[in-house]
């Protein structure tokens, strides 16, 4: 009933896995908010910590918190342990610190990180999140005051989780739904170029039908990638269109393929249409290569890992995410080929009907 079905079954299985694992695995616990965020040295201070996905009441008495200053020679740890930790509920904590008179710092203000350690959630760091000020500078005194406490042991969260990012939150899951559309598009276009080359070698109309079907599916995936990307961008970067180099490049790629469809529409004769559009398809894909692989590497981008390397940063794709991301990429690409295959069969039927 379904032709050559094994890879279609594989596509469905991979996508089901992508949806189940991609949506069900929780985010790693994180610190959503700390208030207030600025303190003065030499006073007893209190701050409210709001957690994300945290289980504070479960870990009640085993919680530990430190403020950590990073100096130029950070060989020696400069930490200060919380004097009291009060658990309000699973998501809220009240921390108190006795801030010493002096900071181990050469200037009047400095920033420190907050480290929260729990046997349930694992250790969580809020990097450079808290501002400290002092009235007068005394480096040596500050160093002595901040060297009393030590971080002896940090727990590790061993559960299956996705990384917590304060801008992304749950949208980090879009990595399995938005990014693979782009992969699928590239593969579809790549194969369509292959069939264009085959057409120019054999002048077999079948290769032209395949090229057209692959380009249609690739174009559809490109549009979807652009729209989903715009929505994701709205809620992480603040605007639907941020003039980001990759957004612009995708838009240009889509313009090129829209031109391909217009070119096909300009000819009546089937053979001429197939030949000229195959030539344009190869030429256009070649012009796309610097657009996709060269310029994004040289331009600053909001996308992760840019300015030298457009791949994902180490922090943005950990091993748990890889376990979902790679199957997702394969699954979406196979789905794209399935759609293209159906479009191709319709195209073939149509040409048979025209010949008859």
């Amino acid at each position, binding site marked *: 009933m379904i032709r050559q079905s094994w890879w279609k079954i594989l596509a469905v299985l991979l996508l089901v896995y992508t949806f189940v694992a991609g949506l069900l695995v929780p985010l790693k616990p994180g610190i959503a908010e700390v208030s207030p965020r600025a303190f003065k040295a030499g006073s007893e201070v209190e701050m409210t910590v709001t957690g994300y996905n945290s289980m504070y009441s479960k870990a009640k008495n085993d919680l530990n918190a430190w403020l950590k200053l990073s100096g130029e020679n950070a060989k020696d740890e400069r930490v200060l342990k919380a004097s009291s930790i009060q658990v309000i509920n699973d998501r809220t904590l009240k921390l108190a610190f006795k801030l010493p008179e002096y900071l181990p710092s050469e200037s009047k203000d400095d920033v420190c990180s907050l480290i929260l350690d729990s046997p349930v959630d694992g250790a969580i760091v809020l990097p450079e999140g808290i501002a400290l000020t002092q009235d007068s500078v005394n480096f040596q005194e500050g160093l002595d005051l901040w060297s009393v406490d030590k971080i002896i042991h940090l727990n590790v969260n061993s559960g299956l989780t996705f990384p917590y990012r304060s801008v992304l939150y749950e949208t980090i899951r879009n990595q399995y739904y938005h990014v693979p559309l782009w992969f699928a598009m590239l593969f579809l276009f790549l194969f369509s170029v292959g069939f264009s080359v085959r057409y120019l070698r054999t002048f077999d109309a079948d290769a032209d039908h395949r090229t057209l079907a692959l380009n249609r599916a690739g174009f559809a995936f490109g549009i979807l990638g652009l729209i*989903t990307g715009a*929505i994701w961008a709205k809620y992480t970067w603040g605007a639907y269109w941020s003039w980001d180099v990759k957004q612009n490049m995708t838009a240009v790629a889509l313009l090129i393929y829209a031109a391909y469809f217009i070119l096909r529409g300009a000819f009546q004769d089937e053979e001429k249409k197939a030949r000229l559009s195959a030539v344009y398809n190869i030429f256009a894909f070649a012009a796309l290569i610097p657009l996709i692989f060269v310029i994004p590497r040289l331009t600053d981008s909001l996308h992760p890992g840019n300015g030298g390397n457009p791949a994902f940063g180490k922090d943005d794709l950990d091993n748990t995410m890889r376990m979902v991301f790679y199957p997702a990429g394969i699954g979406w690409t196979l789905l794209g080929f399935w759609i293209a295959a159906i479009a191709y069969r319709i195209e073939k039927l149509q040409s048979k009907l025209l010949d008859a």
Partner: protein
Amino acid sequence: MTWNRLLLVGLLTLLIQQMAFAQQAASGDFLRSIGHIYVVVAVILIIFIGIVLFLIYLDRKLTKLENQIKQNE
């Protein structure tokens, strides 16, 4: 028949949009609630609608072919 189907999908899309807007109006910033999870939902929904639209496009083409075959007979 295909036009009916198109109309149906169009109405459905409108309905979903209306629902989203209604909820947004009701609770301040709906899409940002619960760790922005509804952004993921919106993305998946758009992909689904996109694939359905492509299916409709293929369906219309097939209907045309079927009619042609019928005429030839």
